[in-house]
Structure formats: structure tokens, C-alpha cells
């Protein structure tokens, strides 16, 4: 393989993602023009919709919290050379764990229920990643295929459980009953209200602190522990890992379990923080947004945090947009998400070489 052109660090982690994002937004703008609306007006409306008021900021941060979890999930697997497309299914099943704890212990103190719920989300999400992980590690079955299949199985399983088992009796829509008072992750506006700061109500809740903690822990794990080192070695070169005494199968299992556990935390934000019940398809594609977030954030927690904010703003701004532009709705955001994956993931080499030429190759000295 020809080595890809090298860029200085600031360009690798700052400029290149921005150039790729710019390309994605440019094409999105062309589509908006094509359907007869003004791209500039759309952009202004989106920014205002995402950051214009306290509650819209709250929604933006709420969505961003979802994407931090799924983005970290994709990134941890990426560092081990694995492409975990199963974030959606792992988040869905993880939410089942969160929800079951909340339904069972909702009357207990939040100090008990919230840690239990987080733990259950991690365990259920990790369990859903375990089968594809084990098959990849021991049998060499391609993890991309098995995690896709696992997504569909998760969807069928959850539909079955919600329609036949967990549904609140005497109700038509497949949802569980509401969680008890102890199983509510406090909203940020409530917490701020208690210390005398007024903030407009929104689903933005304390699960965002968990997301920040997860970013820190993932950073420590990947770059400051022996396990994380092993993970990166396996990701770069599994054969070298064997010679270094690292077991690739075990490392794959660890990476995927952590990845599934992180995805499973989505339920803490969505269910404990906002919906207060389990309902059909609550991840709503957040697992796939995680792919875009991880690619754009270069698999680094800080980058993922920034990319999550961007996508949170896109989601919130996109739903506001549909009020003012009847021809543009959240589908537009799905399009942007796909374009970001295309340019930051598959086509990132297209801009890399010209950028490297532009900046001069001698700047590459900063690279390890």
C-alpha cells in the first residue's frame, strides 16, 4: 500500500474534517437549491433553530448526548480495526436493560436506580455485541455482516417484547407503562432551578455528564492503559500483535464489549432522561449517526464531542427548519449525515493529497 499523504496534526484533526464537512454541506446546499429553497436562509434557520433559544440549546445538547455515546462506541471498535455497524441494535437492547431496571425498581431512591440503570444498559448493550464479537474473534465471521444482522434481530426481538410482553395492559400503542419516580434522570433545567438559575425546560438531562465521563474514560482507556495499547496494536497490525504477545481474539472481545456497553448507554439519556418508558424504535437511527460522528471526530473523544454537537445542532435545527420551509424536513439532515460519512470516511483521501501539497510536506515532521 502506498502510504497516504501526511498532514500536520492541526490539519489532520482540524482542517481536513472541516474541508470534508464543507464539501458535504456544499452538496446539501445544492440539493436545497434544487428543490427551490435558499441554502443561506436554510442555514440561518437551522442555526437559529439549534441555538436561538434556551430550550433549543437544550434539545441540541440532548441529541448531542445520544451521539456521544454511539460515536464513542463506533470509535472504540475502530481503534481495534473493527467496524461496528451494530450500534443501533446495541443501543436498542441496551435500552431494554435500562428500561427493565427502571420498571422493576422505579419506586426506590434515584441514588440506587440510576447507577443500576446505567449498569444494566452497559451490560445489555455489551451482551448484544458479544455474539458478533465472539464470532469475529473465534470464527472469523465478518463483524460488519453479523452486526447488521444483529440490528435486524434486535428490532424483531424488541417489537416482539413490546407488543406481546412489556406492553402496558389495556393500551394500543406498543409502549411500557411509565417508569416510577426514582427512575428519572434529573433534567438540567430542574437542577439549575434548584440552585436558582432559570433555564427553559428541555429533555437535556444529567446523562450528558455520563457522556462527558465516558469521553474521558475512553481517552484514558485507549491512550493511557495497557488494554488500550493492545487494542490499537491489534487495530494497526494483528500479526505484529501476536508477536508482541497480545491475543487478537481477546482484544476483539474487549473492544466490542466496551463498544456495545457505550452504545447501551443511549437508553440512559433517551429513556431515563426523556421518554420515561420503553417505546418502539427509540434509538431512531442514532446508532448510524454514531458512524458519521466517529468518522468526523477522527475517533478521538474530543473530536467526537465536537462532531456530536454539530449533529445535535443539525437534528434540532433540522426539525425547526420544517416549520418554516415546508419542503425541507429532517430527511435533509439524514442526507447531510450520509454525505458527511461519504466525505469524511470513504472519500477522505480525495482532499488529503491536495491539502498536503498545499501545506508543504515538510510540515509532516510533527507526525509520530
Amino acid at each position: 500500500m502506498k502510504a497516504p499523504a501526511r498532514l500536520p496534526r492541526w490539519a489532520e484533526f482540524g482542517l481536513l474534517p472541516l474541508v470534508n464537512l464543507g464539501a458535504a454541506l456544499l452538496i446539501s446546499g445544492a440539493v436545497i437549491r434544487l428543490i427551490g429553497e435558499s441554502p443561506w436562509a436554510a442555514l440561518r434557520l437551522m442555526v437559529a433553530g439549534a441555538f436561538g433559544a434556551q430550550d433549543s440549546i437544550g434539545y441540541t445538547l440532548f441529541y448531542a448526548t445520544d451521539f456521544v455515546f454511539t460515536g464513542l462506541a463506533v470509535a472504540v471498535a475502530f481503534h481495534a480495526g473493527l467496524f461496528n455497524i451494530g450500534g443501533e441494535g446495541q443501543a436498542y437492547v441496551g435500552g431494554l436493560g435500562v428500561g427493565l431496571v427502571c420498571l422493576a425498581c422505579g419506586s426506590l431512591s434515584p441514588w440506587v436506580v440510576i447507577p443500576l440503570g446505567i449498569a444494566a444498559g452497559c451490560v445489555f448493550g455489551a451482551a448484544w455485541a458479544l455474539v458478533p464479537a465472539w464470532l469475529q474473534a473465534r470464527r472469523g465471521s465478518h463483524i460488519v455482516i453479523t452486526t447488521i444482522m444483529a440490528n435486524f434481530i434486535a428490532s424483531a426481538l424488541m417489537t416482539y417484547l413490546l407488543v406481546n410482553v412489556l406492553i402496558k395492559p389495556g393500551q394500543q400503542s406498543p409502549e411500557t407503562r411509565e417508569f416510577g419516580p426514582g427512575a428519572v434522570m434529573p433534567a438540567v433545567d430542574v437542577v439549575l432551578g434548584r440552585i436558582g438559575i432559570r433555564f427553559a425546560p428541555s429533555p437535556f438531562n444529567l446523562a450528558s455528564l455520563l457522556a462527558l465521563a465516558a469521553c474521558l474514560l475512553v481517552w484514558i482507556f485507549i491512550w493511557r492503559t495497557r488494554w488500550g495499547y493492545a487494542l490499537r496494536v491489534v487495530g494497526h497490525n494483528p500479526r505484529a500483535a501476536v508477536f508482541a504477545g497480545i491475543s487478537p481474539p481477546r482484544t476483539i472481545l474487549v473492544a466490542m464489549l466496551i463498544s456495545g456497553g457505550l452504545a447501551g448507554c443511549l437508553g440512559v439519556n433517551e429513556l431515563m432522561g426523556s421518554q420515561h418508558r420503553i417505546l418502539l424504535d427509540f434509538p431512531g437511527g442514532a446508532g448510524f449517526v454514531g458512524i458519521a460522528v466517529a468518522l468526523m471526530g477522527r475517533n478521538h473523544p474530543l473530536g467526537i464531542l465536537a462532531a456530536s454537537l454539530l449533529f445535535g445542532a443539525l437534528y434540532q435545527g433540522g426539525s425547526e427548519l420544517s416549520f418554516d420551509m415546508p419542503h425541507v424536513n429532517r430527511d435533509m439532515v439524514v442526507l447531510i449525515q450520509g454525505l458527511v460519512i461519504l466525505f469524511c470516511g470513504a472519500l477522505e483521501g480525495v482532499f488529503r493529497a491536495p491539502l498536503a501539497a498545499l501545506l508543504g510536506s515538510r510540515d509532516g515532521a510533527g507526525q509520530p
Partner: protein
Amino acid sequence: MDAYRELILLLAATIRVATPLVLASLGGLFSERSGLVDLGLEGKMLAAAFASAAVSAATGSAWLGLGAGVGAATALALVIAFACVTHRGNQVVAAMAVNIIVAGLAPTLALAWFDQGGQTPQLEGPGQRFLGIAWPGALLARRHPFPGLAYAELLSGHNLIVYLAAALVPAGAWVLYRTRFGLRLRAVGENPLAVDTAGISVNALRYQASIISGALCGVAGTYLSTAASAGFVRDMTAGKGYLALAALIFGKWRPYPTLAACLLFAFADAGAARLQGVSMPVIGVIPVQFIIALPYLLTILLLAGFVGEAVAPKAIGVPYSKER
């Protein structure tokens, strides 16, 4: 007699459900045998379903719709090929990107052009759809259910695309195993270096395979919106592209076993619709969701090596680079 009638109707439904799977998995067969992971089946099909319904609604011609569907899906296949073959990008990422792009773009355009909440208008005019073709004597044959009903329901009465799909499987198998192009295609999926050494362009072969896959997905998507139903609706493929991929793996990347897998999955699907709430002897009511999940469970079991062994093309997913 009732059981016989039920069985014939079930098999006829199986054929209808299987058609898009057969076409898409045949397309996937070509690109995967050339060494490209084809996760983009879903997106290419969805794009074709939208393009064909939109053009058919606008022009009143299902044939122009078919052309647009094939064109749209092939264009996307070329986008993926450009990213993965020319720029050696990650094939899984490129395909997922295209799937997500189409999931957003198709309803956006539908909303803007037709103003019906993200779908195309109902295709009701003459010539806007591919309708069933009654074979000679089909009506007469119904009077003698055995074997007339089988003739009328299984052989006769399908639309053109169903027959096309049935013909394309042997044609595809012939191309893959009996022509020089097929030999080179299979070789490039196993050992591209050898093909390159023989002076044949690896990239050209992979582009050709991508175009074939795109065209077949185009026909499959057109079938969904202009033959099996009357118009495009949001998320119309609903995972059929991934199901076709599962069938391709379950068929071990070979044409006829893949066809069999498509028929098996379609049979399960058609059966699920009929078994809803029906109590079976011994096992009781089978949850529909179990039957929906069955193809994916079977594929995972196969990949795990519990049901035979699936050996993928050796060079699949690995970008080819001349410089070493």
C-alpha cells in the same frame, strides 16, 4: 383442496416477494465476486424505487421509469466505485454513506416535487406500472384447479420483471462461469495481483462489476415501486437490500444456491403474513417477529460455521493497489 389452494397462493406470493431479492442478490454476486463488499444494495434499490416511480408518474411510462431506476442505481454504484476502486476508500463506509444519503435524499426530493409527504403520487394511469401478464388459457385453467390453478398462479399472471429475474439467474450463472469476463471477474475477487500480472485491469473489471450490480439493483428497485406496488413510499426497501446480501452469503456467493436462499427467505416472509395469529400443531402460535428475524439468524449461524461453511471471495473488501 383448501390446503392445495393455500399452498399455491403461498408459492405465488413467494415468487412475488423473492423477485427483488433475486435481482439484488444477483447484482451483489457480481460485485462481491469481483472483490467489492456490496453493502450498498439497499441504497441503490431505494434510489431506483424512487427514480422509477417519479419518472413514471411524470411521464406516464413505466419503461422510462425503469430506465430512470437503472440509471439512478448505476450512478450510485459508480459513486461507490469511484470512492472504493479509484480512491481505495473503505468499501463498507462508502456503501453505508450511500444507503444513508438515499434514505434522506429520496423522501426530500419526493416531498419537494410531489408535495405528498415524501411519497410519489399513486401510479394509476395506463402504462405507468408493470402489470401481470396473463398467459393464454389462464382464465380457463382456473376452472380445473388441479393443475390449472398452479398454471394460472405460478406460471402465468406475473409482471415482466418477475420473468426477467427468472431468466437473469441462469444468464448470470452463464456469464460468471462460462465466459472469459466471468473467469476474470472471479479471479479478480480471489487474487487481483495475478489478474494484474496477466495484463488485465483490476480497476476496469471492478467498475464493470459495479455497473452490473447497479443495473440489477435498479431493476429490483423499479419492481418495488412500479410493479409490486403503485408508487414510492418512504423507506420502501425496508431492509430488503440487507436481506438480499444475507441470501448471497447464505448461498455461498454462488448463483443457484443464492436463488434458493432468496426463495427460502421469501417463503418465510410470505408465510409469516399468512401465519399471523394462526396456531400451529405442537408449537402453537409462532410470533411473526421470529419469522422476520429467521433469515438473519440463519445467516449468522451460517457465518458462524454451524450450517455448512461460507467462504467469501478471498480479496473481498481489500482495495487493490499497484504500488507495493
